[in-house]
Structure formats: structure tokens, C-alpha cells
């Protein structure tokens, strides 16, 4: 079954690609191998085949035949729209692309990345092999959700899903972008109930994603910049803290700080930080070997954290 249909689809593609002029439907049904049965069933077969090929991304052009013929439409696949046309790629670039295609291990993105690279490797470009790329990303494996959302973005269809934040709730979102940020996948989109841009971590989705049937429901503003909606990313803003560090300890803090003066049991350093939450965790790692001198708010924050542990 699958054999015969595949064979027919291949023959149809071959014929429509080979022809320079449009082929009439009757010519196709008569000459392309695989169309059998009554006229009606042949025609139905052909209609389905056309849809199938289009779903593979193959463009079938419909055109008017010579006006001297009956006004039956004609079909062909223009070579230009069928084939992969890429700019010249250097051997090094092709090698980088091959590595990129193998980046995804066994995640949902792997099959498409690999079929993509096979096409590039069918262009006859030699590939160089002297790249030392070894750095791998260990990330949360992207789930099926990822594909549904990227589909929704390209169709501009809104989506609905159940999300686990402070409480579980059903969210209605116009998806704008899928963001990979420091090892995690996020959806950035316009939450239509809350009427604002929101960021959702894909690992906190607790239901399937339902895609609206409608297309072009929204338009992503042309000047949309996802980076402005990421929290805590203002690395430009840095704060300075003064620390008392016990002699011979906290080498890592010392290494990135500025030495101020030396005391009897401690040395004083100035250290900059941008994310307070992370900095507090770093300081507490050193226990009693590091004490915050300034600013007062940071002293207070540390005191509150440890008080929380004792309570």
C-alpha cells in the first residue's frame, strides 16, 4: 500500500519537475504511472496527491494552457521553487553546519536538523574536517511543545495551555518567540487575559498546548525585541560591595575583587556584582569567612537569609 502510493508520488514529482510546459490533468492521469481505476477515482487520487506533495513543501504551479486548447488547467513544478539554492558555502562553513546538525542529540529538533544537513551535503560542496568544536550545551531536552509553539508562531495562531506558576491556571497566549536562555526553553508571548507580555518556562507547562484553528490572529510588531522583556538582564548595572575576607580564604572572590587594605585577621576587598540574589548565594558559600561591610542593605539581606534558615 505504502509502496504504491510512494511510487506514484515519486513518479508525479519526477514528471512535473521534468516538464517545461504545463501538463494537462488528462495527460498526467493517462501517462504518469500509478493512476488506476475509474476516471473518477483517478481524479480523486490526483487531488489527494497534489495536497500531499504540497504538504511536503513542494510548490505545484497551476497555469493556463495554450488558449487553443480547452480551458483545462495545467500543472508543473518549477525547478527554481523546488531546489535548494544556497549561497556559496566554504568547506569550513559546511563543516560547521554538519556540527550544528548533530547538536541536538536525540531531542525533537534532531530529525529536522539532520534532514536539513543531508540536503546541504547533496550540493557537492567539499567539507573540511579540522574543527575542534567540542563545547556542548547540556540543556533541558526540548519537548514536543516546542514544535507546536513554533508552528503556532509561524501561523500567527493563539495557543492555550495550563501553566504552573504560583497556582495552576489556563493561559491564553499569542506566541511571539521561543527563547533558549541559559539552558532553558521559554515562550515569550502576549497574554491576552493579563494584557501584557509574559515569559513562560516550557518545563512548567502542565498540559498539552492547544492551537487555535484560526491563522493570522495577531501581528508581531516589527520592532519587537525579545531582549527587553527578559527579567534581570541589565548587566550594565553593577553594584559595589565592601567585604572583609578572612586571611587565606575565598580565593575566587579575591581574584575578581579589588584589594583595599589588610587587617589583623581579615583583608578588605571591593567586589562588584549585578545580580543580588546570586551574589548572596556566592557570599554564603564562604560561611563565616566573608562578612559584608557595605552596603547596609546587603548586610541586612544576608542577615535575613540566615535568620530564615535558623527559624
Amino acid at each position, binding site marked *: 500500500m505504502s509502496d504504491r502510493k510512494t511510487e506514484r508520488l515519486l513518479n508525479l514529482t519526477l514528471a512535473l519537475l521534468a516538464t517545461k510546459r504545463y501538463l494537462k490533468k488528462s495527460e498526467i492521469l493517462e501517462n504518469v504511472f500509478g493512476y488506476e481505476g475509474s476516471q473518477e477515482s483517478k481524479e480523486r487520487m490526483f487531488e489527494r496527491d497534489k495536497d500531499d506533495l504540497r504538504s511536503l513543501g513542494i510548490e505545484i504551479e497551476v497555469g493556463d494552457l495554450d488558449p487553443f486548447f480547452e480551458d483545462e488547467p495545467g500543472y508543473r513544478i518549477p525547478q527554481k521553487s523546488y531546489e535548494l539554492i544556497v549561497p556559496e558555502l566554504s568547506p569550513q562553513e559546511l563543516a560547521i553546519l554538519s556540527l550544528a546538525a548533530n547538536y541536538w542529540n536525540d531531542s525533537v*529538533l534532531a530529525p529536522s536538523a539532520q534532514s*536539513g544537513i543531508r540536503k546541504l551535503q547533496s550540493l557537492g560542496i567539499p567539507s573540511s574536517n579540522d574543527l575542534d568544536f567540542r563545547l556542548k550545551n547540556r540543556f*533541558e531536552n526540548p519537548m514536543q511543545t516546542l514544535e507546536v509553539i513554533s508552528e503556532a508562531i509561524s501561523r500567527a495562531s493563539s495557543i492555550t495551555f495550563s501553566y504552573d506558576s504560583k497556582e495552576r491556571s489556563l493561559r491564553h497566549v499569542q506566541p511571539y518567540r521561543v527563547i533558549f536562555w541559559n539552558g532553558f526553553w521559554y515562550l515569550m508571548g502576549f497574554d491576552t487575559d493579563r494584557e501584557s507580555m509574559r515569559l513562560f518556562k516550557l518545563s512548567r507547562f502542565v498540559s498539552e498546548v492547544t492551537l487555535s484553528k484560526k491563522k493570522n490572529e495577531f501581528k508581531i510588531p516589527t520592532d519587537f525585541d525579545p531582549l527587553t522583556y527578559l527579567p534581570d538582564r541589565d548587566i550594565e548595572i553593577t553594584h559595589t560591595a565592601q567585604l572583609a575576607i578572612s586571611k587565606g580564604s575565598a580565593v575566587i572572590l579575591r581574584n575578581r575583587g579589588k584589594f583595599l587594605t589588610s587587617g589583623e585577621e581579615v583583608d578588605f576587598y571591593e567586589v562588584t556584582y549585578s545580580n543580588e540574589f546570586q551574589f548572596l548565594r556566592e557570599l554564603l558559600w564562604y560561611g563565616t569567612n566573608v562578612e559584608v561591610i557595605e552596603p547596609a542593605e546587603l548586610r541586612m539581606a544576608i542577615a535575613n537569609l540566615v535568620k530564615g534558615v535558623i527559624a
Partner: protein
Amino acid sequence: MSESALDRTARALDLVPYLLEHQGISISELAMVFGVTEKQINEDLVLIHMCGLPGYTPLELIEMYYEDGYVTVSDPQSLNRPRKMTRNELTSILVALDLMKAGRAGEISEVIMNLESKLIKNLKVDNPYVVVSDLVANPMIADLEEAISKSRGLQITYLSAHRDAKTERRIFPSEIFTTNREVYVNAWCESSQADRTFRVDRILECSLLSDADSVAIKKPLAQTTHHEHNEAGIKLFVSQSARSFIEENRAIVSDVRADENGFAVDLENIESEWLIRTILGYGGAIRVIEPEQLVGAIATRATEIYAKYL
């Protein structure tokens, strides 16, 4: 599992131009490249062999030979060029390129950037993915990659958080990876005679060892990494506000059960010093349930620190 005729058609359409550029390729390699069984490839080839242009005489059929497990195509008919890439194919490659660029310095990151803009310009695609990386480009990465590629050891100066000291070591790196916001390297450490993970931003200096020295410090073959088994098990309660702890430490979390207020978490056996220091930073948002001595140790540590701030 039976495959849809459509998936098979897609593969057959890609097989022919691929064969054309890889004449004499073996069936087993084809199976690997296309991610299917050799049996499937054989069936595909038989099928393709029967396809061609109207007329379907030998002159009009796709002409190929497969002998002793090797395939050659002599006439692909109209399937001589690869199909254009789908949106999914292109975007998944683009995200991977973005990831490869992150953390890299110098010429190569420019090469990748140019390549990306070339692809985007020519293939006109709306990319739904955005990669944001806060990794700081680190030239040490290239040295480590070179060492791994060439199977060489390294002499490093390393700031150890654990020992709280600047140390000199010879290591034999095996894997370099990024997770959360940092780049790490797994290596055999000669001085500790064990596999260790190092944070790349804490390597102050590194230099490639000679071939002879590299061989000398290699991990002994018989060595199997020994994991102490933790009979008691570590049980934590992690409140909602500290859930990032679970997400950032997936590797050591063995079980998570959610309730209204947070998560009951079981951990793999890990070093208690690491856990004490880490939990302190979450200020009460993570509670140790078991073992008892860990609960005590954390409370003591916290009281000592608090005394400094009274």
C-alpha cells in the same frame, strides 16, 4: 511501526540527490545518515529503481546500481538537485549555530555569524527561535577543545572553591559543556587521581602538555569511578520560590513530588559540604528533612554567620 507514504516519499526524494554526490556509498552508511534501518534503505532503493518519467522504458527510469552493498546512481532523471529546506530544518540548524556561537571568541564566532546571515538572507525564513546566552566569551574554551581533539593533557592553574585555594594540576580533559550559566570541563585529574569537573572561568592559566606527558597522566584503564552509596538518602523540602534549585541541579535530583506549597525532593548521594553551603544561600526556602545531622549542621552554620551581623 509502519511509516506514512508521505514520509517515505520525502526520504526517497532526498536520497537520489544525496546518492548523486556520494557515489559508491555503502548501504550501511546510508542507513546511518538517513536514520533508518538497512532493510528500509534497501526497500527504498528497490522502489526508486522503478520510478521515472512517463514512458517508463529503461531510458526514462532512474538508473542506479547496487552491488555488494554499495550504491551508484548514473541517471537521476529530474531528481538531480536537493529539495529546498523546510522551515523546521532551517530553524533547528540556526538555533544550533546560535548555541555554538555562544561563549566563543574571535574569528570563529564571526565565521558563524556570517554563515547565519547568509542562510537567512538566501532562504528567507522567519525564525521563531531566539537564543540568549549570558556566557562570557572565554578564550580558554578553544584551548580545552584543542586538548580534547588532540587527546592531550593540560597543565592548569585552578581556583578551587572546594579547597578554597589556588592549585596547580595536570588534567586530561574528556568533555566540555555548558549548563545553566557556566562552562565546565570534565577531566581526569592527576593529583586527585579521580574524575573531576572544573569550572572553566576559574582556570586562570592553562598550557598544553607534550604528547609524552599527556600519556603519562592518562587515567589508568582499570580505574572505575566509585560512588559511595548513600543509604539514608537526602530529603529536602523546596518551596515554590526556590524551585530554580531543582531546575539547576537536575543531575542530582532523583525524585520530585509537588504539593501546594512546594516540592518534596530526593537527592542522589552528594557531598554534604556542598549541600550545606548551597542551601544556606536560599535562606530557609529549602529545608532539609533528612538526614538529621545535616539539619543540625546547617542550623549551626547559619547561627555562626548570623552572629557576625548582630
